[in-house]
């Protein structure tokens, strides 16, 4: 029976380094260790090209090589007959190998030595199972297909985006035992991702931003490919950013307009999966764990499928454009106490409530419009539809997810214990609840 690469690709995730044998034009064999073998598809693997060495000289002269890999759990031993096809130095395969290699390097004390110059793509011509003793495979942690099915079914019937995302993060914990996860949406025009929902952290981090290309989340979004790291890798970790942000808190930090990304201080495994629909990246589902090698190839497959479902569900979610019947706005009843100054910096739409930073960007411009209408026209009730068409709100484009912005604005107001809250009052309608008298100050 033909052996399929999928049936033993966990061997490729390291543990026991593999070997590669090549031959020089004058018939001298060469053998080297492989720091990384990446499964590409059922007929291809990629090997890391880090140094111009004899292996590389040999495969450029004659493309045939043999590799040996060993299962780190069972000691099963496989040999792969390979044909070198090409070297990629950018794109999804390269980026996912680069991130993974950073983890491997850090885990093995080789940071600064291992550096990916390229991903050498090989066709797998033949697979041989080497006769030998093996240990029984440990039982699978869980049935990933069953977990995926349960999550996919639970995705139906959510009333709005907030419920959908909360549901998915709950499912990740209950079905996949993934306890630390977050959803970030992509603002393609700004080249940034913003956190909308999270689970398993002390602070939700709603509104925290990541630049496209920054860390596993940013690279996953930029390349539209999952990025998975099995060990701590400083250059892909968000821990440092969090620490720095904590260090700068205090008096000087009060004015900072950075919301720290939630994240584990001792992250060992990271998996960022793009949420895609119709060929477009909508955001990223990010999961992490304090344990090494928590996510394998099979986890990645299941979670890519789940993120695909989530992308469809987000796309199909009615944008909350409910009935347009204008509810007469009741004048504010319970706003009392000293004034709260709402400062709006036009340059980046950042908002401060007195001295406390609230939010910036699109969510900031939404908040500013709501407060302005509240103060100038006594309005408290708004529809999503009018907000989407409101010229004061700088949505990057029509397809931008207004609801995601409203979710993070709502969360921020709640978490800051703000004197203003937004509440859903029906499909596609929100209402402003104001506890204190407001004063809006625009700053150019």
């Amino acid at each position: 029976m033909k052996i399929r690469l999928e049936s033993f690709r966990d061997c490729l995730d390291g543990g026991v380094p593999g070997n590669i044998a090549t031959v020089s034009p004058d018939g001298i064999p060469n053998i080297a260790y492989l720091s990384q073998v990446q499964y590409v598809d059922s007929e291809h693997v990629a090997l890391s090209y880090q140094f111009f060495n004899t292996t590389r000289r040999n495969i450029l002269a004659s493309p045939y090589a043999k590799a040996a890999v060993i299962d780190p759990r069972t000691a099963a031993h496989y040999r792969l007959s390979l044909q070198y096809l090409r070297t990629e130095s950018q794109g999804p395969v390269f980026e996912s190998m680069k991130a993974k290699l950073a983890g491997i390097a850090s885990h093995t004390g080789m940071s600064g030595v291992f550096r990916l110059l390229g991903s050498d793509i090989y066709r797998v011509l033949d697979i041989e199972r080497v006769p030998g003793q093996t240990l029984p495979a440990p039982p699978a942690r869980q049935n990933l297909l069953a977990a995926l099915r349960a999550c996919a079914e639970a995705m139906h019937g959510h009333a709005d985006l907030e419920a959908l995302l909360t549901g998915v993060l709950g499912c990740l914990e209950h079905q996949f035992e993934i306890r630390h996860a977050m959803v970030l949406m992509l603002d393609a025009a700004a080249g940034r991702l913003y956190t909308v929902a999270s689970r398993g952290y002390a602070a939700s981090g709603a509104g925290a931003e990541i630049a496209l290309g920054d860390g596993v989340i940013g690279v996953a979004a930029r390349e539209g490919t999952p990025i998975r790291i099995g060990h701590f890798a400083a250059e892909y970790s968000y821990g440092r950013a969090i620490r720095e942000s904590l260090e700068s808190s205090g008096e000087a930090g009060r004015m900072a307009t950075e919301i720290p990304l939630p994240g584990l201080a001792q992250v060992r495994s990271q998996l960022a999966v793009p949420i895609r629909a119709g060929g477009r990246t909508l955001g990223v589902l990010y999961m992490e764990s304090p344990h090494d090698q928590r996510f394998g190839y099979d986890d990645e497959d299941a979670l890519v499928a789940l993120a695909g479902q989530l992308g469809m569900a987000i796309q199909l979610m009615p944008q909350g454009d409910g009935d347009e019947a204008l509810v007469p706005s009741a004048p504010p009843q319970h706003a009392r106490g000293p004034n709260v100054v709402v400062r709006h910096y036009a340059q980046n739409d950042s908002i401060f409530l007195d001295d406390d930073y609230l939010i910036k960007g699109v969510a900031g411009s939404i908040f500013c419009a709501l407060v302005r209408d509240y103060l100038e026209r006594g309005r408290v009730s708004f529809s999503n539809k009018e907000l989407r068409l409101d010229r004061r709100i700088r949505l990057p484009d029509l397809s931008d997810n207004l609801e995601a912005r409203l979710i993070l604005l709502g969360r921020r107001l709640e978490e800051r214990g703000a004197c203003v809250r937004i509440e859903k009052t029906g499909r596609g309608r929100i209402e402003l609840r104001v506890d204190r008298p407001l004063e809006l100050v625009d700053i150019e």
Partner: protein
Amino acid sequence: MNAYAASALIGAEQAAFICGGVGMSMATCRPGALPNIARATGCKVSSDRRVVTLILAATPGAAALDDVRRTATIAVVFTQPSTHRTLQLKGTDARIVPLEPGDHDLVERYVRAFAADVAAFGFSEAYMRALLAASPDDLVAVEFTIAAAFVQTPGPRAGEALAANA
């Protein structure tokens, strides 16, 4: 490659290294075919440090042994997982030779030493015994004169050829 270097290419310390608890794999080839790989389970070095003998299981190494019979060319890589120290030796006069008394004990000592080195990475002795398992009557030896030696530890010196040792 010169199979008759004036003096040994590896020193006493390097000889001890390749006879210790390090991973060892060999590559062989023949014209018109892909190279072959086989894992070895023990190594000896002659007193003048010119000749290396590898012990390996014949069944999983059948294709590589066949290459040795045909072309006598060989490359062997030795690596210590805990330090990444890696050395590659090459020869052009490889031949299959009978086991000597004490070789079975050497294999047992090797398995224990290698298992001890990788224990820190979470590999149990049971795992290493499965990985290196060979039935005693399946063991064979391959001997070759060191014609070239290369440092292969990842880093700036990787690929450097060792000069003859006095």
